[in-house]
């Protein structure tokens, strides 16, 4: 199969591609034209003839390749870091975060560091949320225990003649509470 004209340069070894990019970035001087024309001259001298459009496309392709490669590398690093710091995090969640990092870096539309910090903040908030939920659960359990205790005491004291006498007797509500308290808890009431 005849190789495509644009694949001539794209499949060259990395160091050769770097050399072409260096030629293409060369400034014009009295000795040579600089830029793509200079790169084309150098390639031709090495026996590789390419059109200006092929060369131009290669330069764009190389730049994007580098950009995407850097973005993928950064995303991989972040994924590894997230997994290390949060071993319980679902791999699917890590993968999604890494994809977001890649997209931000590749499009250069955001600051990946900020994104990572936000994600850590979110994790911290999730953790704080969990703690708050646990506290709420503890309070709920304490309240329930108090209610049960109250009911138990009611059953216990409703059968008690003295308590019934206080409850049904005259006096204000505060006086009845005071009298019942003393009857129930004795010296602990004070």
């Amino acid at each position: 199969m005849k190789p495509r004209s644009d694949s001539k340069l794209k499949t060259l070894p990395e160091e050769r591609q770097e050399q072409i990019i260096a030629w293409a970035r060369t400034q014009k001087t009295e000795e040579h034209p600089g830029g793509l024309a200079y790169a084309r001259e150098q390639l031709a001298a090495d026996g590789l003839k390419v059109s200006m459009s092929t060369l131009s496309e290669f330069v764009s392709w190389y730049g994007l390749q580098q950009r995407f490669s850097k973005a993928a590398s950064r995303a991989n690093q972040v994924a590894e870091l997230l997994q290390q710091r949060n071993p319980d995090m679902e791999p699917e969640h890590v993968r999604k975060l890494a994809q977001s990092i890649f997209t931000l870096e590749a499009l250069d539309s955001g600051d990946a560091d900020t994104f990572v910090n936000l994600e850590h903040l979110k994790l911290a908030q999730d953790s704080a949320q969990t703690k708050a939920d646990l506290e709420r659960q503890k309070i709920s359990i304490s309240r329930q225990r108090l209610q049960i205790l109250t009911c138990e005491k009611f059953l216990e004291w409703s059968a008690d003649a003295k308590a019934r006498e206080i409850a049904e007797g005259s006096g204000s509500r505060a006086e009845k509470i005071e009298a019942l308290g003393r009857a129930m808890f004795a010296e602990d009431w004070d």
Partner: protein
Amino acid sequence: MNPKQRENLRLLILSTINMARGYGVPMDGIRMGLPPQMRQLDDDDLRAEVQYLIDKGFVALEGKVISPENREWKITAEGRDFLATEGLA
């Protein structure tokens, strides 16, 4: 766009997605891999070509998305093999 240009566009899209090394590439990223005259194409036109590549098994949708504008596409093993046979990978 003539058939040759269309074929070239599809190859450029596939090559661009391949650069992401397994990550999904959004529409803006795909556009970055196209020559200036092709960057002017509508999202719908580009999506139609991406859909063609999906139908061929060369490209897959990355993750679950609700909004079409948030779609990202990644290359499949078949897509990489195809680029290799074309001398583009």
